[in-house]
């Protein structure tokens, strides 16, 4: 149910592409802070983010973003004015410099006052650590820097909702840390929704996590609760346990097993990743926290 703190409300949303189901009756409420969408490839993360970013219409269900209905043309425009969006795939950007590109996007974001626009462009490029490269051609920047340029455009106009699709893909560890710092600063006052398949991203920045799998919402709640899903389901052995759903050799030279433990198993505290793996196993069920 929607309340005053809810920024995004997704109600029984479905989406199909030909005979492939991308989303199947997904329900979700998202409030202020960072919400991470976690799931394997094809789980429906990008489709859901596109629907929230108003670039894709759902086939079924209802969505409200910042209190507006994206199916309604006028309200869709209001959402776009208050939205920052970092898509998974980005364009070639021609011969733009980082500054010119972000300035161009600012124009399309209807920031028409030149002084205000340029101040904002400098602000966002500085926020992503590109203050010394803002007049470099985008084609001359590294992949990680290009990703930061695109992140910068998403932060134009101090959006109330920031939607980031795989924002840490292609970033090196230092850039990833900087990204987390940037996102945390935004999320202190606004709402950030990001998709990832890295549980480290979720553990580092997310206040809430949603696990999507094959178009279904498997879990909604804080990251600690996601780890708790695997309570009593993780044990370690010297040899791989054939009864486990999943079993892998850790850096300590012992096997970590996931599933229903045998009697007398040496249970260990679960991690976020354990909870995620357990939920996305074939026989998993939806869990809400």
């Amino acid at each position, binding site marked *: 149910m929607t309340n005053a703190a809810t920024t995004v409300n997704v109600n029984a949303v479905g989406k199909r592409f030909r005979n492939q189901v991308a989303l199947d009756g997904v329900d979700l409420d998202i409030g202020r802070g960072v919400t991470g969408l976690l799931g394997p490839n094809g789980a429906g993360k990008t489709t859901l983010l596109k629907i929230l970013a108003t670039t894709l219409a759902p086939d079924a269900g209802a969505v409200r973003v910042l209190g507006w209905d994206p199916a309604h043309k006028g309200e869709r425009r209001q959402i776009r004015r208050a939205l920052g969006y970092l898509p998974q795939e980005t*364009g070639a950007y021609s011969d733009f410099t980082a500054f010119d590109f972000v300035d161009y996007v600012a124009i399309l974001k209807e920031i028409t006052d030149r002084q205000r626009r340029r101040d904002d462009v400098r602000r966002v490029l500085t926020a992503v650590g590109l203050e010394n490269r803002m*007049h470099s051609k985008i084609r001359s920047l590294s992949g990680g820097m290009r990703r930061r340029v695109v992140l910068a455009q998403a932060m134009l106009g101090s959006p109330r909702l920031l939607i980031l699709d795989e924002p840490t893909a292609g970033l090196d560890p230092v850039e990833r840390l900087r990204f987390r710092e940037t996102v945390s600063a935004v999320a202190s006052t606004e709402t950030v929704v990001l998709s990832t398949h890295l549980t480290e991203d979720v553990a580092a920045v997310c206040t809430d996590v949603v696990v999507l799998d094959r178009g279904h919402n498997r879990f909604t709640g804080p990251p600690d609760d996601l780890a708790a899903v695997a309570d009593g389901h993780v044990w370690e052995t010297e040899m791989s346990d054939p009864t486990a759903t999943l079993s892998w050799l850790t850096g300590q030279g012992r096997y970590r097993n996931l599933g229903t433990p045998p009697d007398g198993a040496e249970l260990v505290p679960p991690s976020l990743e354990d909870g995620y793996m357990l939920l996305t196993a074939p026989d998993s069920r939806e869990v809400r926290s």
Partner: protein
Amino acid sequence: MTHITWHADAATLIGYLEGDLTEAYACSVEAHLMACEQCRLQLADTAGVRHVNGSERESRHESTWGRVLDEVDLPSAGPVMRLLSRWVPEHELRPILAAPALRNAGCAVGLALLAIATLVAELRPTSGATLFIVTAPVVPLVGVALAYSHPDELCGEIADALPYSRFRLLLARTTAVLGLTLPLMALLSIALPIDLSTAMLWLAPSLALCSLTLALSSLVDARIVAGLLVVLWVVVTTDTWRGTSMRIEVHTLLDRSLPFQPAGQLLLLCVAVVATAAAVLGRSNYELRRTA
């Protein structure tokens, strides 16, 4: 060691404090102040007398720095942008003129017109005019199709989530292409050795073809639409050329080809109006993508 041969007078120091000096003169004074203790002390006295406090100085410094940044950050503008920006706001021009597709469209239109003009010059005067009237409608169509090719080419999928209307962008680009093409073609028409009303018979089909491209590009890629319309136009006008080896007089064109007869011209104008109206009324169809 540098030997100081001059000192800043009171007016110069006041001007420096007030930020009234030219950029070059202010830099010169500042360089001098770095080296001259006497002038620094004089500057401190002047500042004290004038009760200039730190925040005011800082504010002036920030203001000067802001002006420098504005100059540095000015997006690179070509001659067309600089000329047009005298009358049209920058935020209206940049989405149109920053597009590489529009430059490609301009080049294609220029080359097409050059080719037609060369062919016309090679033929007998009136049959050359006929060739121009029949082929000219395709020229703006090619330009419009190329300008549409990637309406959001500059920022990919980001453009889909921006409030700036995609239809507005397409319409602006169409207008830019037509604004470039139609006057050039009108000038060529004036140069033809026939009366102007006959020489301008290409205009109605041009408008109809471009409007149809605009309207149908909400459903199908504009380049496909333009390609189909070119084929359709060739089919419709083929009768005109049958058995003439391309040397046909204008009066024969008027007799044989429906699009150039009064009824055909009226019909084409109606198509242009209806297609434009359909595009405007269905402008929201240009926005949402239905597929991933």
